[in-house]
């Protein structure tokens, strides 16, 4: 069933074949290892890849290997480097290669490949039915892939039992044991490892303190609020000291008010612990605000994987361009001035921030490339106005500062369209307005 467990093989030594190696055996050694790993690391920034420095390509590659984890487990660090060079791309702590899965006729995952460096928080983002939960469950071992390799910490885990993969899993509805109180819920994973009683008590107390759940040990899940349940689920998943934390739609069951608060709590908690984590979400703002790396899935495929800013700024496919951020899709955008090179009937996506509305009464820059537009509607969006404009038969959205002269529906204005995401089959690329770029427009695209 699985490779023979070796003592303390948290980072398994490479086997001659380059695969295999044992996951952490659920022994007391695992429990005792946990002490250094729960230490809150003040300098957690090192373990979280900075979103400001995205890798060049869409595929994730060696970003910033976390060093904090290695120092917490000194005897194993030497072995990791050996394993990493032999078994997996450098610093890819979790990696999937060509993973397929179908349920009957429904293909939930097609050739899924991505990798995640150690200590980072990844988000699997996609619409419902896009295969993201299936991917997460395959990593956990709750589903068996039809093909492809799943690696954790450099070793292939496909054939390793879920409980031996060293994974903490937070289920969508938390799946707390309803007939056990909070203490027993958190202690469950330690009890199955046959940890000594004193050790269990100590560890549970530690985790309840971490999740600010002290004093609620005797409560049953039915007596807790949604946010408290999530924290218990989190504590329970962390109790056996997993090397990878997986969360399935962790905020879906929580009302919108508490969600934002929990989001930053979880983000903070994960980066303090420095544990490599992956969560599933269908909410793009959740993924973009919380994750270091976002893997966008659609129809069982990985559309693009990268830091949030990169996905926003440089979507690789039409799907990503539409799914991340706001955008309007135009057909035959070649008739817009400055985009005459586009093939007839070509599609593109335009974000509101690509469209500049020249306030009436102010001098129009680049007059030769400005388009005439009619304001169709004006709606107040808190800090700015959102305009819907009609430009050469297209309807475009744009933001408009409250500081400028007011506009109302029916007004005629000049607009500049700086750039669009041009679709070319299943690819998307950024196309700048040729009339602006030839003169050096002075507007650098900064987000």
């Amino acid at each position: 069933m699985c490779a023979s467990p070796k003592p303390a093989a948290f980072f398994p030594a490479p086997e001659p074949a380059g695969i295999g190696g044992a996951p952490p055996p659920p022994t007391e050694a695992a429990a005792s290892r946990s002490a250094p790993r729960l230490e809150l690391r003040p300098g957690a920034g090192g373990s979280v890849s900075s979103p400001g420095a995205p890798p060049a390509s869409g595929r994730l590659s060696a970003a910033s290997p976390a060093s904090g984890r290695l120092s917490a487990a000194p005897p194993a660090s030497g072995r990791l480097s050996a394993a990493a060079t032999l078994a997996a791309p450098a610093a890819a702590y979790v990696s999937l290669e060509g993973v397929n899965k179908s349920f009957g006729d429904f293909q939930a995952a097609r050739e899924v490949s991505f990798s995640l460096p150690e200590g980072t928080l990844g988000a699997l983002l996609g619409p419902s039915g896009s295969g993201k939960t299936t991917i997460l469950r395959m990593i956990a071992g709750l589903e068996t892939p039809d093909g492809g390799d799943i690696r954790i910490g450099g070793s292939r885990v496909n054939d390793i039992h879920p409980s031996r993969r060293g994974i903490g899993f937070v289920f969508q509805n938390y799946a707390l044991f309803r007939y056990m109180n909070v203490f027993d819920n958190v202690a469950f994973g330690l009890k199955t490892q046959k940890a000594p009683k004193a050790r269990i008590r100590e560890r549970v107390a530690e985790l309840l303190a971490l999740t600010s759940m002290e004093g609620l040990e005797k409560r049953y899940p039915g007596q807790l609020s949604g946010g408290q349940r999530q924290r218990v689920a989190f504590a329970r998943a962390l109790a056996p000291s997993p090397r990878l934390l997986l969360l399935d739609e962790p905020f879906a069951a929580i009302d919108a008010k508490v969600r934002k608060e929990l989001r930053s709590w979880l983000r903070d908690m994960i980066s303090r612990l420095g544990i490599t984590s992956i969560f599933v979400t269908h909410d793009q703002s959740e993924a973009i605000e919380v994750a270091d790396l976002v893997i966008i899935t659609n129809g069982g495929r990985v559309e693009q994987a990268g830091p949030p800013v990169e996905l926003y700024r440089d979507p690789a496919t039409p799907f990503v361009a539409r799914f991340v951020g706001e955008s309007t899709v135009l057909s035959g955008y070649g008739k817009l001035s400055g985009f005459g090179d586009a093939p007839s009937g070509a599609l593109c996506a335009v974000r509101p921030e690509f469209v500049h509305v020249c306030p009436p009464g102010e001098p129009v820059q680049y007059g030769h490339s400005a388009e005439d537009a009619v304001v169709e509607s004006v709606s107040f969006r808190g800090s700015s106005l959102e305009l819907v404009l009609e430009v050469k038969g297209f309807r475009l959205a744009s933001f408009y500062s409250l500081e400028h002269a007011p506009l109302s529906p029916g007004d005629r204005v000049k607009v500049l369209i700086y750039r669009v995401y041009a679709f070319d089959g299943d690819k998307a690329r950024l196309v700048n307005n040729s009339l602006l770029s030839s003169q050096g427009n002075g507007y650098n695209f900064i987000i």
Partner: protein
Amino acid sequence: MNRWGRENRALKTVLVAASFAFVALFLVLPLCQVLWKAFEFGVRPFWDSVSDTYTAKALKLSIITTVLAVACNTLFGLCAAWAVTRFSFPGKGFLVTLIDIPFAVSPVIAGLVFIMTFGRLGWAYPFLTEHDIKIVFAVPGLVLATIFVTFPFVAREIIPVLTARGTDEEEAAVLMGAGLFRTFRSVTLPHIRWALLYGVILCTARAMGEFGAVSVVSGHLRGRTNTLPLHIEILFREYHTLQSFSAAAILVATAVLLLVARNIVEGISRKDADCHVR
């Protein structure tokens, strides 16, 4: 109050009264009749009839048969419910339908099935005689017939509970390294314990009173293969009215006790669900 409300109230009164009248006339009255007949001449004659050798043996046999059948069906019910709700396999819908067969088939047919299988004309007969195993017209036959008739009770009670609950708690337990037995004992069982007990109670009540299937396979050997319901019938046919009603009173008392137990379990399980589910 509008017209509809008034009419509904009248309708309600009529329906409730009709229900009570029906239950009283066809269920409560006959049962009271049984008890009244049993104690018509006082407690002493009742006790004498009940402590008659053959009646005592019939009661003992009924209890043995019931215990064995309920034990088997509890085990089977747990396995079937687990299989049906936790795995997907071809023929799952068919299996669920099969579980219900005893509800649809007449108990007499069930008895005949065993006669045709293990009796003199049955295909298993040569093998059984060769190994000197008696099934039909012996205790094993009674147990088998009772198992057949009470087959669905436990599984039927557990399947809806397990279906409604989903599998994620078990998945969580397995991910945390719990084995099958531990997962069942500490995660699944607490959820289904009341449904299980409820099913066991219904199963017991049905097994105690089973007549049709048992009658076919019993052979009516007094003191050997006569269960209490069969014994009651024999006594009644032989005009031992007092003895037959006294024995019947035992069955009625058992049924009432089981009903009370059932209601208690139902109450507890509802309270339990209030505390733990959502």
